[in-house]
């Protein structure tokens, strides 16, 4: 199957439109490392949000730790605001099985009890293994099981989507 991926910058603009209309005073964005943080940084800046940006590295909360081991460069999660009672929007680059989002929600509840959590993703590639659905989506794209969709960022901050081989053929 040959798949042509959409332009990441155009998708980001579309996503910004959707997320922007959902922002309230107590809404906070939280990006998931690494691609989700790049997107969240751009959304946070473009939407001129007052609440500081949060970041999550869900490596300590993954359910495949014993199979995949621990990544050495885990960036500390940073939540520079009270989570209790807040409307949160999680931002990730590619939504696949849903396991990353489950891990992110587990971690978030260690910081407090948010009023709500919604999910914004640049790409939804289907293949869900958990009952997780995004509220804001850049595009839905079908790719083969043995392929990954990867978000990259160049030195000028420009975002690009790329296909790569999924050697582990494991869920994102």
């Amino acid at each position: 199957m040959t798949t042509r991926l959409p332009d990441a910058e155009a998708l980001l603009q579309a996503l910004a439109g959707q997320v922007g209309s959902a922002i309230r005073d107590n809404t906070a964005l939280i990006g998931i490392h690494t691609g989700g943080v790049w997107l969240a940084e751009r959304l946070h800046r473009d939407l001129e949000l007052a609440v500081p940006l949060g970041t999550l590295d869900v490596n300590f909360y993954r359910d495949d730790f014993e199979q995949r081991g621990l990544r050495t460069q885990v960036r500390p999660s940073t939540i520079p605001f009270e989570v209790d009672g807040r409307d949160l929007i999680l931002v990730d680059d590619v939504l696949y099985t849903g396991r990353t989002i489950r891990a992110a929600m587990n971690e978030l509840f260690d910081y407090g009890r948010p009023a709500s959590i919604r999910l914004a993703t640049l790409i939804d590639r289907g293949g869900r293994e958990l009952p997780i659905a995004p509220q804001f989506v850049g595009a839905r794209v079908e790719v083969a099981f043995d392929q990954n969709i990867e978000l990259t960022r160049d030195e000028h901050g420009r975002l690009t989507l790329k296909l790569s081989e999924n050697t582990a053929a494991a869920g994102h």
Partner: protein
Amino acid sequence: MTANPQLNARGELTHLLDIEGLPASILWQILDTARSFVSIGEREVKKVPLLRGKSVFNLFFEASTRTRTTFEIAAKRLSADVINLNISTSSQNKGERVLDTVANLAAMNADLFVVRHAQSGAAHLIAKHVSPDIHVINAGDGRHEHPTQGLLDVFTIRHYKNEFSNLRVAIVGDVLHSRVARSQIHALARLGCPEIRAIGPRTLLPRDIGALGVHVYHDMAAGLKDVDVITMLRLQNERMQGPLLPSPQEFFKNYGLTPEKLAFARPDAIVLHPGPINRGVEIDSSVADGSQSVILPQVTFGIAIRMAVMSMVASS
């Protein structure tokens, strides 16, 4: 070539028995992983679920409060179930062999043994006899090594000095009996520290320490000159009255770290101590509590190091 008992077939850390047998890549991996764990201790919920459902047995055949406690905290922060066994007061007194004790605990579905023993090589022996799905971490064996202490020392040094390639490090006191010093020397050498000095009386320095690339000094003024890091070793009580030392007062006069002696080091030198400290024997209170002391951060970083090691062996 003999297989490394600490690494599995994929080269991953499966036991931590000593620093001497580890490649630098694994040491860097432990330090990098530990850095990720430091922030967990600063959160309101100081837990991550990596070892949920795992059983960690602290097998302390020799008394220790501090090391056992930090291993216990580390395991609990990884959500493991922790069982503390002070075996010197139980089965060993009834004559049970170490390996019988371990076999019984393994039959209770242990996943990880943290072993402290007065005999050098005890952790190696246990690792050799447990099944492949059980991991062993050496928490100090005789005069051999105390690898997690050595790693937390180098983690602390890296935290304050960023890198090892331009450092002079002095280790002061009873190097002869110190498993902490041995582990720290191996770790520093492997991570690229160009100059390691051992300072102490002739009776407390190993004769063959030069073979490790360590420079020997018997005089604090010369030994501390321009060093970036000073590790003060604990002087154990039983050494103070023995033939190796005239008296604690004499030792403090010559080798105790006072503000005057600290002034020989670089102005930004940091002072480490594995604890518990003997104030007025190895170190003056004004230095132990002073601005250059990083003794308490060492304790905090020790938890992150032990979390890193436990999570790495558990995922191997």
